């Protein structure tokens, strides 16, 4: 086993163990921190796959944005220090059964499928190429989805403000 493969298995173990702790931990704050580790491990996996730009986006948006947002909302809504309730026995049991059965089915299908051997990876995923194709209006250009997603982000921003706005008490 080469060093690269060892790095991959260590990263996978980090991702899976911290994800498992994130969904089973009884303290919600610890759960958020385990989620942080898991997302960082996924960014490491992108680095390992030589997708540096996606790894950077993963770190900036997920680790720097979403997890911080989640931690803020934990502090706003939760008495930190209070334990989360243990799930009901039957529900926990059947959830484990469903997850394990689904995993085994999918893994068996994956093992049986013969993927073509990986081609020689050409360094196409440079930031130059990504930017040029993302904003290109020609064939295989992605400028329309790019604009649509900017509208979506604007709509989400306005929606958040409207939803979370405090209504004025009508006492006058």
């Amino acid at each position: 086993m080469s060093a690269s493969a060892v790095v991959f298995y260590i990263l996978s173990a980090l991702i899976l163990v911290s994800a498992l702790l994130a969904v089973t931990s009884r303290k919600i704050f610890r759960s958020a921190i385990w989620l942080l580790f898991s997302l960082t491990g996924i960014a490491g996996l992108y680095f390992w796959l030589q997708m540096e730009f996606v790894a950077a986006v993963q770190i900036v948006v997920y680790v720097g944005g979403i997890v911080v947002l989640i931690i803020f909302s934990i502090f706003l809504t939760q008495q930190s220090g209070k334990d989360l309730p243990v799930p009901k026995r039957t529900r926990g049991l059947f959830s484990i059964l469903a997850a394990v059965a689904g995993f085994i089915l999918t893994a068996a299908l994956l093992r049986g499928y013969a993927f073509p051997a990986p081609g020689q990876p050409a360094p196409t995923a440079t930031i130059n190429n990504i930017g040029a194709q993302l904003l290109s209006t020609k064939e295989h250009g992605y400028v329309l989805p790019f604009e649509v997603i900017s509208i979506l982000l604007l709509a989400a921003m306005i929606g958040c403000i409207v939803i979370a706005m405090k209504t004025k008490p009508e006492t006058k």
Partner: protein
Amino acid sequence: MNQVPLTHILIVSTALFFIGMYGLFTRRNLITMLMSIELILNSVNINFIAFNRYLYPQRLEGVFFTLFVIAIAAAEAAVAIAIIINLYRNFHSIDVETADEMKF
């Protein structure tokens, strides 16, 4: 990178998906359910990147899909947290079992 077969990466992302699904089934707290959804979205992203890298290394479609999924996940998390804060204001709890006013 070529020493690890594609199947192993896909199995890791499958495991991540089902861990997220388990969390979605067992948790009754909205914030932890949101965390599970983030795990599921990330497992999909790993799949896109791995397929792009291993099967079509000269194309960039997987990268773009991943970037769009990340953007949509950010928007979704922001809206979800606005809803959670609003729910907490009305019910003083973010447990899904307490918000049953519109339950038929």
